[in-house]
C-alpha cells in the first residue's frame, strides 16, 4: 500500500485535490506535479481536501506556499478543507491559518469559490 495518494476532480469549476496518507519530503514531488498540472491547465480555483491526510511536513506546506501567489495573481485561490485536528495544528504552527482559508466542510469550501472569477 502506498504511503501517500493523490487524486483530483472538478466540482463546479473548482479543482479539488484529495490528499491521503503521509505527505513528507519523500512524497512531495507527486503533490507538486499535480498542482503544477492543474495550474498549467488554467485551474486557479483549487481546493485541497485533507480529510484522509494524516501527516504533513514543511515540504508539503512549502509547495502550497510556493504557488499561492501565482494562483492569486490569476484571480484564484488555494483553500484547504476537512483537515483533521492534528494536521490543522501543523499548519497553525507555521502561521498558515492566518494566511490561508481553512474550511471544515468541502461543500461550503466550494461555495466560497463561487464569487471568484479567475482571470483568463
Amino acid at each position: 500500500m502506498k504511503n501517500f495518494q493523490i487524486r483530483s476532480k472538478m466540482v463546479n469549476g473548482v479543482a479539488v485535490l484529495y490528499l491521503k496518507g503521509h505527505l513528507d519530503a519523500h512524497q512531495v514531488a507527486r503533490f507538486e506535479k499535480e498542482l503544477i498540472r492543474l495550474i498549467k491547465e488554467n485551474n486557479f480555483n483549487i481546493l485541497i481536501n485533507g480529510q484522509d491526510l494524516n501527516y504533513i511536513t514543511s515540504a508539503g506546506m512549502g509547495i502550497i506556499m510556493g504557488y499561492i501567489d501565482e494562483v492569486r495573481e490569476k484571480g484564484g485561490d488555494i483553500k484547504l478543507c476537512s483537515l483533521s485536528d492534528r494536521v490543522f495544528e501543523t499548519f497553525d504552527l507555521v502561521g498558515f491559518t492566518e494566511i490561508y482559508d481553512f474550511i471544515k466542510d468541502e461543500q461550503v469550501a466550494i461555495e466560497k469559490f463561487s464569487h471568484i472569477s479567475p482571470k483568463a
Partner: protein
Amino acid sequence: MKNSAIFPQKPDFSITILSQTQLLKMVVELTRHITTLFNFPAAEAQKISLAIDEAVTNVIKHSYNNETDQHITIEYFLAPGGIKIRIFYRGLPPDISDEEINVSKMIKKKKKGGLGVKLMKTIMDSVTYETVDGENCCEMIKWQKTI
C-alpha cells in the same frame, strides 16, 4: 530553561541511517514510539517526531544535497522530565539564521523552503547547531509539561 546536564552522557538509543528520504517515515515512527514510551502525551510525541523529520530532511536536502549514500546518526537521551535528541552528519554545515521567518514575505518571494526550521523551533524548547572538525550536530531538547 532547565539544565540540560541532567541527560546521560551516553545515548539511551541511537540509530544510523542512510541519507534517503524514504527512511524518514521510519525515523518519525521510531521517534514517536520512543517519546510515547517515555510518557510524552501522544500529541506531543507527534510534534517531536515532526521536528526530527524536519531536521533530518534538512540534512538530506541541504547538507548532503540529496546524495543517498551518506550517513546520519540520531541519538536519543532520556532524563526525568525531558528528551534530548542529537543528529550527527557531515556534508555542508547548516545555514541557520536567527531571523524571524515571515510566511507572508516567503509567499511573495514564491519560496517553497524554510518552514522546517520554523517548525523545529516552534515545537522544541531548544534547537542548537554546532560543527566540530567537519562533523555537524543538531541538538534538540523537549521538556515535558508539568501539570
